[in-house]
């Protein structure tokens, strides 16, 4: 047995990062690591070009009409907070789903607890999919937004956002999509989906570093500034810059992160989103099929892996998932994520809210041999219970 850790927690963050991305981050920051767009010297202009060029890449990547409405944020949670703080007003209503991450559930709870908004959550079916008509049932005249995860970080199920978007567009309700688990693995086309905003993180399937993400906004959606400060322009004015992207960006932005994100997008473009998804789905299918003979392994919503990303969540009967994770780590050098995955209502749906579960999420750099090792480890665990 080798000492290499088999990393199967790519739904949390992709690891390792492609060498090309790390090299470009180092090279770019070494050569251009100055404050972008804040000075008239050549380096500042060149650094600004990198930032604006990355906005353009992201706009093309997400099917967005206007690169100036690509807003850099720290991560998807940060981007979603920009939406909630800048869009919702007292008396508003929001519709979301029980599959959401706490990046959505906690802001909504926060606003509701203060009496500012109300919200309803659409249920998913037994296979882990939200029916678009379930969303429609919850809409009210004062519904200000529908917020939906593109792919569940617990079940891996890809939600029918295009159909949800069509229904939202018919009713004039903005659709906000959380693409944390999908961007880089399955195509995201906000125009085709009638999405008003897409929140993404850079450190998962976009292969960038942690600390960079963003929000892509359709020009029809007006989002107020919710943080204020220097933008490098309009400095005589005490009012925060009203134009995009500066309206939603305050302070010096994360140049190192943007360099990595840009390099990650290039890396994906050289391989294609489809090829990456196919590779990962072959691995997760091998895992699912390999576990078919393990009597004490309980898989959730994995009978069919159609319309899934490469995530499988399971439990081994008789072993607490947290202990199973520790055993996999120490005895088998396999890194997985256990617990509630910051999505408690998805676990409530599965009946695993009390104990949690074990999530396997292979990535681009995993091999069939890695999966066979994981199957073997789970078989050993299940036999001994």
């Amino acid at each position, binding site marked *: 047995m080798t000492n290499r850790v088999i990393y199967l927690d790519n739904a949390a963050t992709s690891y390792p990062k492609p060498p090309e991305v790390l090299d470009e981050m180092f090279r770019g920051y070494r050569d251009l690591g100055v404050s972008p767009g804040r000075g008239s010297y050549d380096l500042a202009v060149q650094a600004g070009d990198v930032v604006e060029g990355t906005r353009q890449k992201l706009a093309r990547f997400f099917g967005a009409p206007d690169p100036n409405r690509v807003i850099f944020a720290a991560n998807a949670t940060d981007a979603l907070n920009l939406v909630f703080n800048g869009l919702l007003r007292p008396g508003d209503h929001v519709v979301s789903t029980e599959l959401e991450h706490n990046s959505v559930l906690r802001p909504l709870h926060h606003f509701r607890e203060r009496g500012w908004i109300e919200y309803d959550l659409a249920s998913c079916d037994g296979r882990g999919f939200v029916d678009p008509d379930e969303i429609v049932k919850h809409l009210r005249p004062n519904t200000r937004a529908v917020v939906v995860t593109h792919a569940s970080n617990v079940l891996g199920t890809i939600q029918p956002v295009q159909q949800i978007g069509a229904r939202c567009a018919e009713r004039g309700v903005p659709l906000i999509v959380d693409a944390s688990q999908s961007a880089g693995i399955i195509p995201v086309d906000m125009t085709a989906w009638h999405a008003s905003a897409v929140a993404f993180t850079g450190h998962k399937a976009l292969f960038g570093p942690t600390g960079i993400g963003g929000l892509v906004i359709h020009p029809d959606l007006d989002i107020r500034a919710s943080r204020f400060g220097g933008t490098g322009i309009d400095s005589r004015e005490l009012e925060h810059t009203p134009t995009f992207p500066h309206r939603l960006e305050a302070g010096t932005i994360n140049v190192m992160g943007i360099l990595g994100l840009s390099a990650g997008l290039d890396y994906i473009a050289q391989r294609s989103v489809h090829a990456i998804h196919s590779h990962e789905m072959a691995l997760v299918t091998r895992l699912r099929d390999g576990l078919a003979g393990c009597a004490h392994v309980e898989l959730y919503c994995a009978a069919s892996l159609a319309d899934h990303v490469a995530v499988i969540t399971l439990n081994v009967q008789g072993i607490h998932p947290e202990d199973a994770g520790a055993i996999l780590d*120490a005895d088998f050098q396999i890194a997985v994520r256990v617990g509630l995955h910051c999505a408690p209502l998805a676990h409530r749906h599965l009946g695993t809210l009390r104990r949690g579960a074990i999530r396997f999420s292979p990535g681009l750099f995993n091999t069939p041999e890695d999966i066979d090792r994981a199957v073997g480890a789970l078989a050993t665990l299940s036999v*001994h219970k």
Partner: protein
Amino acid sequence: MPQDAERAQLASDLGREARLVAGREIYFDREGFFWEADDWDEEIAIVLLRESGLAELTETHWKVLRYFREYYFYHGRAPLNRQLKEGIGLSLQVLESLFPGGIRKGARRLAGLPNPKSCF
């Protein structure tokens, strides 16, 4: 509010519950983990181990508990998974089966280490 009631309310707000164990008042969190690792001693551990359903305490059990505590007080945190395996000289799969409740809610809790509060 009387002082005792006030203390009880504060403890409840913090998720603490006091229990008498081996004649001493010990605070635990809602999952049964020690609030203060210093409150642990072997007499209390024996009571808690028996409560957990362990009929016989072997030298292996004590070796695990002592390793946890020595590591924790020397390093200021619990051992990593691989350090634990190496330190006790057992696979974690064997460790899991040694204690009712397994590794986290069994061995670690009964060694008096604080609740790791991972993603739950």
